[in-house]
């Protein structure tokens, strides 16, 4: 099996241009650490992976190699990334992880992209003893999964937390008088993620005293959402909540602008935090709530965002990008602490606290990172976290005041 050499070469070039030969001589004495990466480059999820997943892996490898590699038991060793495209097909993900484990003999494997692909690959990670620090893997079965796959870690959060924090934010807005009524219009994409979130949110909204005045689903990939938005508008809601995916997140918002949907809170889920979203809707994005968030004012994030843009030519998104990068920082720190023994790394992951771009991260008894961002909002051209489960720097939420066109 061929190993990818591009990264090694770029890294070597970057190094030689910076320090000349001395650093090079030192770093080439040891074999590189082989790190596998499997995620979609094609297929339905390729668009999402191209924003949050692949650029961070490249950025991280470039940075690590630029500083001479990882310190493993006193030796500086470069990292070498082997990338595979799983074509958004769980069968391919499984095969690629197996290939990395047995043919490429990777030292570590970066967790795949998306819930379904992560969970499909979990048995293979477990079988070969690789720690799986998953990011874009949002589920409510953390307990079951962690007990079955003890090396699987969860960084981005849980379904119920995302649903309950949206309900909480809206309740707070209502209590503060920002929402002048109880009426919620809720729609969801009829895909696993949308169905799960809608099912979790429905009882929570009722419990919090909200009335769901419009509740429907639409097929994945639907971009003609005018009937959905029109019907939502006719229900005269105070808040609009959509458990949506990338193409329809854009479609819903475009239609809401055209229909002039007047609500005091407007929420779309995945991809609201993408820079492309802000770029497309500009000032009209102001006040839109979405899944995720970061603290864009923290020094760590600013530095990361600048490096991301310099290395990949694109801005990171305001949610999973930073978490993906953080997951690699966690892996890096664990390797430097205990070396390449995967058992030891997994054990270390369960115990230690890691310093990342998001702040400190540690895992609970279910391998679950309890402190994460859940809701963000576009404010003055930046997507700011407004709700979290233990992160610092949340901004206060604002009312969505029209579409300013």
């Amino acid at each position, binding site marked *: 099996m061929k190993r990818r050499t591009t990264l090694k070469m770029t890294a070597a070039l970057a190094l030689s241009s910076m320090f000349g030969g001395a650093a090079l001589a030192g770093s080439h004495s040891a074999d590189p650490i082989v790190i596998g990466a499997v995620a*979609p*480059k*094609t*297929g*339905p999820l*390729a*668009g999402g*992976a*191209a*924003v949050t997943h692949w650029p961070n892996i490249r950025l991280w490898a470039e940075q690590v190699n630029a500083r001479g590699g990882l310190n493993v038991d006193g030796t500086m060793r470069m990292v070498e990334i082997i990338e595979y495209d799983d074509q958004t097909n769980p069968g391919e993900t499984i095969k690629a992880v197996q290939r990395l484990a047995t043919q490429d003999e990777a030292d570590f494997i970066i967790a795949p992209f998306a819930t379904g692909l992560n969970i499909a690959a979990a048995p293979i990670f477990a079988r070969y003893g690789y720690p799986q620090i998953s990011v874009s893997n949002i589920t409510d079965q953390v307990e079951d999964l962690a007990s079955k796959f003890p090396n699987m870690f969860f960084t981005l959060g849980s379904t119920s937390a995302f649903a309950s924090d949206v309900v909480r934010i809206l309740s707070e807005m209502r209590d503060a008088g920002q929402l002048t009524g109880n009426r919620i219009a809720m*729609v969801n994409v*009829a895909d696993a993620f949308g169905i799960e979130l809608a099912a979790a949110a429905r009882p929570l909204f009722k419990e919090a005293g909200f009335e769901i005045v419009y509740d*429907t*689903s*639409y*097929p994945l*990939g*639907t*971009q*003609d*959402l*005018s*009937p*959905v938005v*029109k*019907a939502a508008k006719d229900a005269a809601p105070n808040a609009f909540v959509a458990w949506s995916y*990338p*193409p329809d997140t*854009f*479609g819903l918002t*475009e*239609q809401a*602008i*055209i*229909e*002039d949907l007047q609500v005091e809170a407007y929420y779309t889920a995945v*991809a609201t935090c*993408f820079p*492309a979203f802000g770029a*497309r*809707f*500009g000032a009209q994005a102001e006040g839109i709530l979405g899944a995720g968030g970061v603290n864009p004012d923290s020094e760590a994030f600013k530095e990361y965002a600048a490096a991301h843009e310099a290395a990949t030519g*694109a801005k990171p998104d305001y949610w999973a990008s930073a978490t993906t990068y953080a997951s690699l920082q966690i892996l890096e720190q664990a390797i430097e602490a205990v070396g390449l023994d995967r058992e030891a790394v997994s054990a270390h992951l369960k115990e230690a606290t890691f310093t990342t771009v998001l702040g400190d991260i540690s895992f609970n008894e279910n391998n679950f990172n309890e402190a994460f961002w859940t809701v963000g909002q576009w404010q003055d051209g930046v997507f700011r976290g407004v709700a979290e489960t233990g992160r610092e720097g949340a901004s206060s939420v604002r009312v969505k005041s029209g579409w300013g*066109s």
Partner: protein
Amino acid sequence: MDIFLTGLLLGGTYALIAMGLNLQYGVARIMNLANGEMLVAGGFCAFWFYTAGQVSPFLTVAIVAPLAFAANWLIYQVMLRPLVKRAKTRGQLESDSILATFGLSFVAVGLMLAVFGGDYFNYSYLSRPVTFAGENYGLNRVAAFCGAVVICGLLYLWLNQSRAGLSMRAIATAPASARLVGISVGHLAAIAFALGGAVTATGGALISTFLTLDASTGVMFTLKALIIVIMGGVGDVRGTIVAALLLGVVETLVASLIDPGLTLAAAYTLFILILLFRPQGLFGRRQT
């Protein structure tokens, strides 16, 4: 009324998606599964020109259409003509072209991925409401609808008035007899295929003003286009237009009155109903 207009606008979009395939399948007999990729490529060109130089997608068409024409002409001459020559029966040509163009769609996705990257691309163009009878409609959708009307109108006139157009229709109806009256079937089939590609790419440029695309989304458009073409009747412009509008209205009706979750189910139900009661499509002729 409002539902009807929204449905018509959606139908206009569908007509843009399907019209090119109708030419390719109806006249050139190529069931082109790479049709959606051509659409995405057209959309990407519009995106690129708009973000790089603020060129209106409606002007970009002037560049996209000839480029797509040339590319599709080449594809036909190099790849598809051997299949046409090899095929002994229409059935064999159909299965061969399905397989070949499916492979071609892979190649196209791979190329677009290499050129554009895998990211979503979208931009905001004419994303303003226009008010008609008290309801709002997206200006970009209305503009694309007008584009569809212009394209369909031109095609219809050309096919019915010009000599080349008449020959095209002769091929669509009876290729063997067309050859007998001195029509160069091979040459015209290549033109029809290329023209179909140009129309599809133009449609892609227009719909990219309101749809979010990425390198891998082509297949969804191919599917829709196939359904519309088959529903309307192969080789008939009017059939495709009627089928596209019908589908748009039915989907909007179902979404507004029943449940948006069932729009595609409704589309397929309509499809199968038409096939059961009029197997040749709305405007198609019975094949002999």
